[in-house]
């Protein structure tokens, strides 16, 4: 009995020792900064790195700023373009990759390729291809479209690049969901004379819906947080900047270019609330279409 309690004591000692680096790290790197950002969002920057609590001033400034509302619209537009189209295309790629054909490992690797290239490099080459005067895309189309400087088009351009970048990643996740579907369902369905299209809607889609839900949540979150791609495609001097600027781009510019960290923090807090709301809606909505009864 004494032996057992000695063992229990050593076990809990080791438990604390082993979680210590992570717990201390999380407290210093995440929990404290999280609380500090909340505080910052209610403060104004003073010289010498000092802060002064100012109540709701930053939030009032934010909610009355046209640039802020524009960034919300841009982010929403970007999400509406990338999430449904991106996931739809990724699902098609995943279904194709699930077919028994030669060379599918190669094709899988090709679609996944953009994931291992830094978004900065990806944005550079697309910016070149979308160049108005000399870009290959306008040459092929035979039109002079201002892909990157036209305020009405710039988000679409960024969305195309974003979809191209993420399609392989999403397809790989969906593929692992597809591979879990038992072949016997398809055999039974084709004996019943169901067409491939019917099989897709009656077997594949419901069976893959849990994975689809995970991919949807993930893609939606990362689209709301989009920053690097737009930053690389649309620089400060671009006349279409305010029409391309996402919430996180606005946060970056306010906090680290303009130096208004209080307002920048308010933008982050707002974005977190938006993400929380959207996620809650998704979890509520999933009951209607996600099928867990497998």
């Amino acid at each position, binding site marked *: 009995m004494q032996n057992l309690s000695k*063992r229990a004591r050593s*076990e809990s000692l*080791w*438990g604390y020792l*082993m*979680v210590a*680096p*992570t*717990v201390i*790290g999380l407290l210093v*790197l*995440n*929990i404290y*900064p*999280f609380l500090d950002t909340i505080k910052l969002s209610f403060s104004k920057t003073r010289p010498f*790195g000092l802060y002064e609590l100012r109540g709701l001033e930053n939030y009032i400034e934010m909610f009355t700023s046209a640039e802020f509302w524009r960034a919300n619209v841009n982010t929403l537009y970007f999400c509406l373009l990338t999430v449904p189209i991106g996931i739809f295309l990724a699902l*098609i790629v995943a279904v*194709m990759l699930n*077919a028994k054909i030669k*060379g599918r490992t190669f*094709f899988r*690797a*090709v679609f996944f*390729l953009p*994931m291992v*290239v*830094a978004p*900065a*490099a*990806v944005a*550079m*080459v*697309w910016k*070149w*291809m979308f160049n108005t005067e000399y870009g*290959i895309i306008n*040459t092929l189309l035979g039109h002079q479209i201002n892909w990157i400087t036209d305020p009405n088009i710039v988000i679409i351009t960024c969305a195309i690049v974003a979809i*191209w970048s993420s399609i392989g*990643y999403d397809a*790989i996740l969906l*593929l*692992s969901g597809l591979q879990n579907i038992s072949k016997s369902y398809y055999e039974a369905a084709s004996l019943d004379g169901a067409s491939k299209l019917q099989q897709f809607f009656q077997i594949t889609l419901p069976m893959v819906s849990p994975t689809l839900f*995970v991919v949807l*949540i993930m893609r939606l979150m990362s689209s709301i*947080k989009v*920053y*690097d791609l737009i*930053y*690389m495609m649309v*620089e400060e001097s671009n006349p279409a900047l305010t029409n391309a600027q996402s919430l*996180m781009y606005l*946060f970056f510019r306010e*906090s*680290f270019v303009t130096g208004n*960290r209080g307002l*920048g923090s308010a933008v*982050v*807090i707002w974005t*977190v609330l938006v*993400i929380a709301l959207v996620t809650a809606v998704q979890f509520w909505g999933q009951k209607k279409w996600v099928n867990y009864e497998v």
Partner: protein
Amino acid sequence: MKSLERSRKFQTAGVYAFFIIGSIIMIFPFVWMFLTSFKTVEESMIVPPTILPEHWQVQNFTDAMASLPFLALYKNTALMIFLRVVCAVLFSSMAGYAFAKLHFKGKNLLFSLVLIQMMLPAQIFITPQYQMLAKLGLTNTIFALVFPGLVSAFGTFFLRQAYLGIPEEIAEAAYLDGCNQWQTFYKIMAPLTKASMAALAVFTAVFAYGDLMWPLIVNTDLNMMTLSSGLATLRGQFSTNFPVMMAGSLLAMIPMVVLYLFFQKQFIEGVAMTGGK
């Protein structure tokens, strides 16, 4: 029966057509990057464009290397990735094991810190993290690049799942064989999570490599930048010289792409395993 066979052939042809068109769309930007990087600025502005460069010239690469210290960027990026991977795998393994297999008071409370971090977007931590480093005078260092990745909440969560999947009897047997807690973890349990550790390493490396906002903020000295933030600087310098930017992008992407060509299976499986983050 014959018509069925024909329709199957038709389908296979359709799948191939899809993949060939898809592959062209996926690969063409990189081919175009490669071809442009060997052209002169004048040649890059010819409409309609030449496909192959008239003279394959390496001037753009020397120009890119003259304005960006690429050797330093490679070194900084490699060190950042290496240290982040080591920290993530080591600390997450320890914590993941303890959270999954050991009993101690306050375990659930401490684990809730992990869950809170996972639910919040990284940007909410950035400003205070930067201010801490600035106050300590640690900006423009390798440590600054590694800083937000010293511990990994996602890694802890992910490896905890891996340890939960290992039967209790194994640890019990090790204990009866005279292993202490650390030996049980280090010699017996950790090796069983190799696949998960590898997946976490790939995941950490890919995302550290692509990260742009953090390196741009903390390391503004050209010699302390990463490949990603260096490219952003190059973009500012050569805003109309696309061949140089293509050369720079190519130099920045080559190491990871070469690694990918060799470890393609590990990359894809690693990401599929950690998927949904």
